[in-house]
């Protein structure tokens, strides 16, 4: 379809044509009934321990007051030695981490090395600052590289923080309490896993936006252990009966068959060459 009112092909990237229309629509709906984006309303946490980094997350995704996804995966793969937990708008965290992962894969194919965590953090910071917080992604990046074990957080406006333990999301205050209480430098693996589990559990219990299962991801020099789920929610319910009805449950009252009359208008035969 040819559009006769554009002189140039539209530029690639974000398209702001509908922004004015959306602003006008919001005024019409008086009371904000516009559809809300899917947020993850999360608890995510990370801890640096003796041999690496442990990341943890809950698995609930909410869309205002409704639970939209009970088993969503919030720990995203960035590279074999770096994983990222994402809080905020679900689509934004997904796409941003996918882009980051692609860029780092290209880099590692070019140079033959595993990417460092600082590289991931810098790329993210540049990308998020460019969009001035319109991309709602609060990310916790954890990884092991040749320089050691690192844990960073990147905010939606591009702020970066390097810390030994950390939690983000709507349940971060509850989780941070547990982390502050139990964190020590150079923890053992089992203690670190238990600490993160307890922190996420506190977030799940005290925050409405977090819930369901707990996922844990352990990154060490030897490799990655992605345990999904680490702890299942105790409020899982299963369907009591089968909801499939046998044939004949609904009585048929009347039946009317109308045959369609088709007439052959034109017939062409095309030989297919099967040589």
């Amino acid at each position, binding site marked *: *379809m040819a*559009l*006769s*009112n554009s*002189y140039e*092909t539209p530029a*690639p990237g974000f398209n702001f044509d509908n922004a004015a229309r959306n602003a006008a629509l919001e005024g019409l709906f008086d009371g904000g009934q516009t559809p809300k984006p899917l947020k993850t309303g999360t608890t995510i946490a990370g801890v640096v321990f003796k041999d690496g980094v442990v990341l943890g997350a809950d698995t609930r995704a909410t869309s205002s007051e409704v639970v939209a996804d009970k088993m969503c995966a919030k720990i995203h793969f960035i590279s074999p030695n770096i994983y990222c937990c994402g809080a905020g708008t679900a689509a934004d965290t997904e796409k941003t981490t996918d882009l980051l992962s692609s860029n780092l894969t290209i880099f590692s194919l070019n140079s033959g090395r595993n990417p460092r965590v600082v590289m991931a953090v810098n790329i993210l910071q540049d990308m998020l600052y460019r969009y*001035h917080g*319109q991309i709602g992604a609060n990310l916790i990046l954890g990884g092991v590289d040749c320089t050691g074990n690192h844990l960073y957080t990147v905010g939606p406006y591009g702020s970066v923080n390097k810390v030994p333990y950390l939690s983000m999301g709507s349940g971060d205050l509850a989780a941070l309490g547990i982390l502050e209480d139990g964190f020590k430098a150079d923890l053992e693996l089992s203690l670190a896993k238990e600490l993160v589990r307890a922190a996420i559990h506190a977030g799940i219990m005290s925050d409405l936006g977090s819930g369901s299962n707990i996922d844990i991801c352990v990154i060490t020099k030897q490799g990655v252990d992605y345990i999904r789920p680490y702890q299942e929610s105790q409020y899982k319910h299963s369907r009591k009966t089968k909801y499939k009805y046998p044939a004949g449950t609904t009585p048929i009252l009347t039946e009317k068959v109308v045959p369609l009359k088709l007439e052959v208008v034109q017939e062409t035969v095309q030989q297919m060459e099967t040589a």
Partner: protein
Amino acid sequence: IGLRSQLKDSVPVAGFCPQGAYGVQDSLRSGFTSVKNDLIPSHPLELSEKNFQLNQDKMNFSTLRNIQGLHAPLKLQMEYRAARQIQRLPFLQSSNLALDTLRNSDECIGFEDILSDPAQSEVMGEPHMMVEYKLGLL
């Protein structure tokens, strides 16, 4: 090459230049005018995204000039201009391979590679009009 098709190279003052002849709004093509629409873009990111590549280049070239003297950005800009001229006809999508290699954007993926890819756009512009606009005949 027409003057108006090169206007997109400069950073616009108010944000949008009216598209019609003599600088007046072309109601047939762009709809009714509104002072608010012309002065303030409807989205906070619209202007900064439109000029992002331009501003980055300006910043990089001015830093380079301060460090290495005038010849460095001059030589680079000469190469950019040469590479930018390798294009297909206006309504066809050009690969911009030389320009991408110069800019190092052939090894990076950003939102402009995924969203609103012109190679996969659902509408196409009218070829005659686009060529005329490019040549400045319109």
